């Protein structure tokens, strides 16, 4: 038997927010694929939970909506729903690809994309794609609604800017310029049900042969999913060529070393990271529109 807590499933956002504001030891449950096994293994992160607030009965948290310039993804949308959705596949193929690689069918049928970054594990696979698409999130409490960029929301491993009494209600992603091409790469120890060792997302837009804009994000090799703005700035207006990509790969290795420090695994991990990043850039470059 897992630890003791009470369970409620409010039907409206307002009543969920009210319950959360009244119970300091309440935890939100959406997909449950992190928190329930967390209870089972006695994780200290969830040890003080006294009340589970299941938000899946709240109807308007389940939809993916296309607006004129952006797409909204509700807090209860699962990875299965995301990867099968035509709007997501059309505008955010990297996010669809990452969603397909997560866990297993059983996990994807429950796990939510919002839960993935609210949990904020270093290996959260949806984070690098969401970061390169400049995702924002909407957060609601009884008192107010606020919006924040995903990059700012993610603070450190397993810690976010979510305060007590707040719920992330949706992700808002601007539709990217159609000249962007990109790809998502994931390396795990096996194909399915694998915790990522390396994940990378790249979006690039060229004008003639020059890199007009490039967006790069990493996961698993950095403590949390991170945009690599220095590399992006370095690449801007450079020739989209193997030489530039090699330089970028070297810089990525240096940057990761700077962020994480020298580890026992650095000696073999960094060359692998640089190689896969280089190949990813070449692949994206050949995939031009």
């Amino acid at each position, binding site marked *: *038997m*897992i*630890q*003791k*807590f*009470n*369970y409620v*499933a409010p039907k409206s956002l307002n009543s969920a927010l009210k319950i959360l504001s009244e119970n300091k*030891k309440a935890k939100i*449950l959406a997909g*449950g*694929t992190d928190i*329930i*096994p967390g*209870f*089972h*293994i006695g994780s200290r992160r969830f040890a003080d*939970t*006294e009340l*589970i607030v*299941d938000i*899946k009965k709240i109807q308007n948290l389940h939809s993916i909506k296309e607006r004129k310039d952006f797409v909204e993804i509700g807090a209860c949308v699962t990875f*299965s729903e995301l990867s099968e959705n035509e709007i997501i596949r059309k505008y955010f193929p990297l996010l669809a690809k990452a969603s397909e690689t997560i*866990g*297993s*069918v*059983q*996990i994807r*049928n*429950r796990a939510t994309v919002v839960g993935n970054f609210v949990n904020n594990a270093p290996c959260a696979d949806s984070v690098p794609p969401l970061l390169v698409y400049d995702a924002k999130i909407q957060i609601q409490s009884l008192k107010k609604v606020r919006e924040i960029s995903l990059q700012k929301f993610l603070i450190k491993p397993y810690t976010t800017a979510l305060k007590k009494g707040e719920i992330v209600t949706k992700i808002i992603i601007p539709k990217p310029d159609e000249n962007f091409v990109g790809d998502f790469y994931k390396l795990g120890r096996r*194909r*399915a*049900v694998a915790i990522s060792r390396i994940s990378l997302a790249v979006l690039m837009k060229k004008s003639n042969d020059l890199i007009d804009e490039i967006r790069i994000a990493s996961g698993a090799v950095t403590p949390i999913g991170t945009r690599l703005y220095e590399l992006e700035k370095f690449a801007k207006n450079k020739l989209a060529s193997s030489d530039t990509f090699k330089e970028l790969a070297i810089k990525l290795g240096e940057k990761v070393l700077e962020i994480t420090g020298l580890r026992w695994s650095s000696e073999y991990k960094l060359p692998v990271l640089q190689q896969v990043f280089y190949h990813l850039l070449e692949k994206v470059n050949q995939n031009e529109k």
Partner: protein
Amino acid sequence: MKSKLLKKIRIKFRLNGSQVEVETKPNKRLLDLLRDDLGLTGTKEGCSIGECGACTVLVNGKAVNSCLVLAGEIDGADIITIEGIANNGELHPLQENFLKYGAVQCGFCIPGMILSAYALLSTKRNPDEEEIKEAIAGNLCRCTGYKQIIEAIKHTIEEVNEKQVS
């Protein structure tokens, strides 16, 4: 949670085609509800962290790990376990073919494996080998090496399609 009492929850759902209503503890997982409260021990407890798939059941037609679901979450849902796929005592074609093609050794992973295959067959009429592998990628088997399992699923697909044609 030391001082406060647990408030029992009452849930209604469909289980293998019949409507049921149960009262249970709020911290009970679906896996434990099925096995301990309802006596359906065909659903197996393996890793309990969502990796092995031994506890797979169908929730509203979708394969899920019952170790990752709380009992309260299935209120109003349609649940199918391994006990629910035979028809009037006659084994489901998947079950028949698992036996016929030697896909069962120790048997512990089989209920989950069959339900993952069942979920695939109910959404895709003619899945290829890659789709079969993807559908059962969340079900670990340490005995058979998967070959016979995949064979059994393939033969079931062929049989079902032949029946529909004729």
